[in-house]
């Protein structure tokens, strides 16, 4: 079994000891693993693609549809699974700033300090979804990520620049 899958199993056993974990192994070396993690009535599926990472599916994923979230390490996907399993009415189809912040272990105060914004701005965004793009960009950067905005059309898929257009 792939070392990354073995790591994931161990982390799940440690972080979610009550969970049931079922693994579908690939027929051929280098193929994909499928990991079903269930706890009570909740079940989440992870597809592991060697060299690419762990794809986490949302509950409403259809037949043959790809994962909605992708994680590069077993640690991070385990943390996300623990987050999804632990919260009662969490809507797994949406990942808000609060989820991302908690995934990386920041409080609102420490994140605001690192991003150079005020803590109420983070709080407002998490509670009401109101945010300036520049604040969101700084916040994601402070978490170690990069914000991208894309527009999808029927015949196009384009990135939207976050820099103001110069006249």
């Amino acid at each position, binding site marked *: 079994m792939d070392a990354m899958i073995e790591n994931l199993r161990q982390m799940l056993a440690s972080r979610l000891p009550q969970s049931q974990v079922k693994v579908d192994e690939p*027929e051929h070396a280098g*193929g994909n693993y499928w990991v079903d993690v269930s706890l009570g009535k909740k079940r989440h599926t992870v597809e592991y693609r060697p060299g690419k990472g762990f794809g986490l599916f949302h509950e409403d994923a259809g037949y043959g549809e790809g994962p909605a979230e992708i994680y590069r390490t077993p640690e991070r996907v385990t943390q996300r699974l623990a987050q999804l399993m632990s919260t009662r009415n969490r809507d797994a189809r949406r990942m808000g700033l609060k989820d991302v912040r908690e995934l990386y272990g920041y409080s609102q105060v420490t994140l605001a300090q690192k991003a150079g914004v005020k803590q109420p701005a983070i709080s407002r965004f998490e509670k009401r979804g109101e945010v300036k793009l520049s604040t969101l960009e700084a916040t994601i950067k402070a978490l170690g990520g990069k914000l991208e905005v894309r527009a999808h059309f029927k015949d196009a898929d384009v990135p939207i620049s976050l820099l103001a257009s110069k006249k």
Partner: protein
Amino acid sequence: MPTKAKRLQEFLERLEAAPPAGSADEAFGLIVSTLNAVEDELSGVPFRPENWRTDGRLYPPQEDARVKSERPSLRKYRSKGHYNFIGLNGSIRIETLDAAVLLDKPGQDGRRAYELDE
């Protein structure tokens, strides 16, 4: 635009209505061409199988999604919530993870997937 559930239903109906396949490769090709045709017509999402992350389109199984099968005469392909079984005789069986059968199409010799190893 039809929902994912309606597009899946359309795929299953077309697959059921298609002439039976005579080999596993033929059956695999039938699944691929049928689902791609349905999604080209109904999903409104361009075909981009290189994107792993969802784009809202339903994609047929690829070879790297083939998992170990308990039945020697069946190839088994996994997706998030389904198993696709393909028999060496061209039969196709699609089940949910909870074993609800969505399609059980015989191969050209008239035998269904689960009849092959009996």
